[in-house]
């Protein structure tokens, strides 16, 4: 059931989009926001719950100090002001994803407010910087996860019901809300995507969240309305939820602009409602119409005392902020002489810190990138772990590269050394020793193998004597095979040519 759409170009010719983005970030703290339950993803349902996060009578919340610190650091990185005094509030609603019947959040006193994030977008006139203004970033807790069973999902017997897992309920969440983003015109979908991407890089750089959109630790809701011109009053907006990849941010906005424009062109009013984005079909469908149910009756949380970060604390956190990702990325790209795309692949692989550490241990940037993005990324992928979880350190990778540079190992042997290091056999040099890995540099040993190779393949030898140098490959290959890859291929080639009078 797809809605009528009109061409994107036509949307832009007749309407001006206004966007608002709400991003929820699950913090990477070890414990929950108000209790000591673990936050690990993927645990058995309801094994990370306690009286506090289940809302049992008599339980009392206590704020996770690290979560407050992360909230302040996020605010500072987003150029926000930090509240000198703020409170938590109860957001009251009755839905089974919150067993307390309220979500502990912040209402009119967010801890961070009035900031911005600049993002670069490619336009017809070249790269243009858009400033996305941040209205607020506040602290709250995540909700439980519901699994809906019955009725439309296909179960024949039994009434409709939901199965709820409260492991996620109470995980610290920061909600980052933008001000209405105006003036992006046809670039609105790209600006939104660039903003969420830049925010993800920034949060990753701060180390406050694993920002995995596919696991829901970074989630985006998109508010969108259209008006006939930038001077016209704001139109009715829809809120699209479930936008869980960067690509979806752009697609969902594009779709919603086309859908709303079709309705407005037809003279139909937009309904203020929540809509759901469907990644597979690329459409949004109507969810809940905003109504009384949104009357949350916020009031200050009586079980928690106010948060009042001192100026000293804020300044200390500010002084420890990492270089902003966009600036760092630009600086490193220039230092390393690589393209933006190559840089992005380092960042996306989660390899930036590892590459930097390897460079700090003495390897050159190109070699550091090569190992982490090539062989080691493959190993991590095979083992199904993050790059940083591999049992090899930046120092070991730098040492390995040192062995290659000194001529002791070639890349093939180096990969065998990686096997040994990952298997816990020790440092690279020790693994090379114990496994007897070393380029054969003794020419007499190589010449013996070359003579054997020439005898075994006289045709190739004759071709080389006749000047067909391309045939060298076959002989070099068999010498490499005979020496189990421990020869320096370039030296073998030289010797083969020399032996055959070339």
């Amino acid at each position, binding site marked *: 059931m797809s809605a009528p759409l009109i061409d994107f170009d036509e949307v832009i010719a007749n309407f001006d989009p206004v966007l608002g983005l709400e991003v929820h970030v699950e913090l990477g703290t070890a414990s929950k926001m108000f*209790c000591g339950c673990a936050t690990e993803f993927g645990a058995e349902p*309801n094994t990370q719950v306690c009286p506090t996060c289940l809302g049992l009578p008599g339980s009392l919340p206590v*704020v996770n100090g*690290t979560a407050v610190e992360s909230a302040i650091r996020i605010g500072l990185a987003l150029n926000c002001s930090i509240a000198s005094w703020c409170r938590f509030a109860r957001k009251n609603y009755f839905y089974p994803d919150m067993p307390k019947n309220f979500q502990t959040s912040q209402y009119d006193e967010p801890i961070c407010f009035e900031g911005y994030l600049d993002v670069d977008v490619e336009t017809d006139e070249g790269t243009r910087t858009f400033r996305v203004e941040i209205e607020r970033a506040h602290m709250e807790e995540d909700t439980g996860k519901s699994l809906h069973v019955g009725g439309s999902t296909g179960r024949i017997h039994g009434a409709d019901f939901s*199965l709820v897992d409260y492991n996620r309920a109470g995980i610290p969440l920061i909600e980052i809300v933008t001000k209405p983003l105006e003036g992006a015109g046809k670039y609105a979908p790209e600006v939104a995507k660039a903003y969420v991407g830049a925010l993800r890089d920034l949060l990753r750089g701060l180390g406050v969240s694993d920002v995995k959109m596919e696991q829901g630790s970074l989630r985006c809701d998109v508010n969108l309305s259209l008006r006939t011109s930038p001077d016209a009053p704001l139109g009715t907006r829809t809120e699209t939820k479930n936008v869980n990849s960067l690509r979806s941010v752009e697609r969902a906005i594009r779709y919603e602009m086309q859908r709303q424009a079709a309705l407005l062109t037809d003279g139909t009013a937009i309904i203020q409602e929540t809509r759901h984005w469907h990644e597979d079909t690329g459409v949004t469908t109507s969810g809940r119409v905003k109504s009384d149910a949104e009357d949350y009756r916020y009031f200050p949380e009586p079980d928690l005392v106010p948060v009042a970060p001192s100026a000293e604390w804020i300044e200390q956190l500010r002084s420890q902020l990492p270089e902003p990702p966009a600036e760092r990325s630009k600086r490193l790209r220039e230092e390393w002489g690589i393209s933006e795309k190559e840089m992005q692949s380092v960042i996306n692989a989660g390899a930036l810190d590892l590459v930097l550490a390897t460079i700090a241990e003495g390897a050159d940037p190109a070699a550091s990138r090569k190992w982490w993005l090539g062989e080691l990324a493959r190993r991590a992928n095979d083992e199904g772990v993050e790059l940083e979880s591999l049992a090899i350190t930046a120092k070991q990778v730098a040492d390995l590269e040192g062995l290659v540079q000194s001529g002791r190992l070639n890349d093939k042997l180096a990969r065998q050394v990686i096997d040994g290091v990952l298997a816990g056999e020790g440092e690279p040099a020790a693994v090379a020793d114990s496994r007897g890995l070393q380029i054969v540099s003794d020419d007499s040993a190589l010449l013996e193998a070359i003579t054997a190779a020439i005898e075994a393949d006289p045709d190739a030898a004759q071709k080389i004597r006749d000047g067909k140098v391309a045939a060298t490959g076959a002989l070099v290959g068999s010498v490499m095979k005979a020496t189990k890859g421990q020869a320096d291929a370039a030296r073998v080639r030289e010797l083969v040519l020399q032996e055959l009078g070339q």
Partner: protein
Amino acid sequence: MSAISRDDVAHLASLARIELTEQELNDYAGQLDVILTAVASISEVAADDIPPTTHAVPVVNVFRDDVVTPSLDRDSVLDHAPAAEDGRFRVPRILDEE
């Protein structure tokens, strides 16, 4: 003028998913009105320069270290639920959405 109307009580009851009879709506509207009027008398003595009290004790920044503590045993948790299935709480479906 009363501090809370019968309609206000009906609205709150529906938000709280509590079913009230006509008689109960009238009764509670009257009782809540007495309570709210009594509490409202505080605002008569509170001047504009007195900030609202947040907490009985003037304390801020009570934080806990980010340390994991043991959770409850799942079976004993679910034993207290009206219904459970597959290690999860089983609840009536409320809204037709995710």
